[in-house]
């Protein structure tokens, strides 16, 4: 139990997908202008990431490894991820059209959110069990959501600041992300694995 908790914390904080692993930066920079949207994106990603972590594990261990078809790994992973995302998108569209519109082009982009594929591959690299994979996915997603929320909060405030023209927009967002990443280095070395 403690091991699983540490796994969750470790992926969420210590090896944060965004700030340490550099995965999922497109939505991180793209959908963090407003807190509400960031929350929506975070939740959608959480859902997708957890599901795909499990699904890719199953595909890997039930299909690819027994059949010795490692060369199809990327392709099958991407297909599985695309399918999960597609269904999430439809679910959101049905449940909350407004959220769907605000998340706009980013929902399909979860497919190309490297955090999703990256987490699946990391799971493989670390030889995680199914439960570990699911936790790893959930932890990554929680870390993603936490950081994107913090970042959205910061950006909302910076949007009101008197940022010099050269830094306005993307540069200040990147710098803020860098400073946030600096702060997250404080979690480094926590014995989570």
């Amino acid at each position, binding site marked *: 139990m403690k091991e699983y908790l540490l796994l969750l914390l470790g992926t969420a904080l210590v*090896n944060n997908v965004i700030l340490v692993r550099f995965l999922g930066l497109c939505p991180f920079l793209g959908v963090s202008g407003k807190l509400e949207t960031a929350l929506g994106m975070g939740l959608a990603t959480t859902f997708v990431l957890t599901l795909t972590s499990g699904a890719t594990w199953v595909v890997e261990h039930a299909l690819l490894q027994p059949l010795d078809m490692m060369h199809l790994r990327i392709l099958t992973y991407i297909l599985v991820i695309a399918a999960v995302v597609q269904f999430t998108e439809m679910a959101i569209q049905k449940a909350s059209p407004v959220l769907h519109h605000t998340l706009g082009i980013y929902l399909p982009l979860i497919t190309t959110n490297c955090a999703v594929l990256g987490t699946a591959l990391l799971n493989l690299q670390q030889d995680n069990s199914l439960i570990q994979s699911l936790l790893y996915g959930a932890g990554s997603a929680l870390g993603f959501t936490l950081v994107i929320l913090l970042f959205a909060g910061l950006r909302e405030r910076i949007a009101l600041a008197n940022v010099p023209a050269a830094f306005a927009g993307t540069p200040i967002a990147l710098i803020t992300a860098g400073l946030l990443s600096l702060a997250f280095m404080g979690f480094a070395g926590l*014995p989570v*694995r």
Partner: protein
Amino acid sequence: MSSTLAAGLRRRPGLLLGAFALGCSAMLGAGDLATREEIRQRQADDLRHALDQTLSAVPHDNNPAEDTIAVEDAGRSVTVYRARMAAEVNGVAFNWVSEAGYGGPITLTVGIGRDGRIASVRVLSHSETPGLGDKIDVRKSDWIRGFDGRGLDTGTRWGVRKDGGEFDQFAGATITPRAVVGAVHASLKFFAAHREHLLAAPAGAAAAAAQPGSPT
């Protein structure tokens, strides 16, 4: 592709997707055929290279990469490469994964002599910070050679200086060396626990039943 076929496919997206999947997997299969042997060769090179480095101090006349046994330890299987002179096992090498370093687990190849002392240790893969944690890499620093000749019985205080041990942490980085020292220590304990089994003379070729595994 004739235009009628194309038009037909356009109307049936499922089929179209299937067709593309077919094409893609064919290409991948071809690519796999073309590179599989080469990649296997590279990995074998990697392994041989690692074993060369870690077992160079152990006199042997066999090819350790092809003389392996699988040892069960705490629920996982460790592939152990053995260096033999004639029938006697003079040393073994195996991969050992550390606790998390700064950037995740560090994979070591540990060579241990018959006497239970470290022959040599090399880092196989890591994702530590360049310029800081990567000094565990022998190409960057000689630090890793500091384990040579040490064993559980040499009175070594296993730990980094900061924790009261005798191994240097390098400037500012404690976590990485701590993980490596811990892993080497653990690998020695593993050796000690399975000493008899590891050093037992192989009964002919029976011990080489296990495939030369791919290093992870």
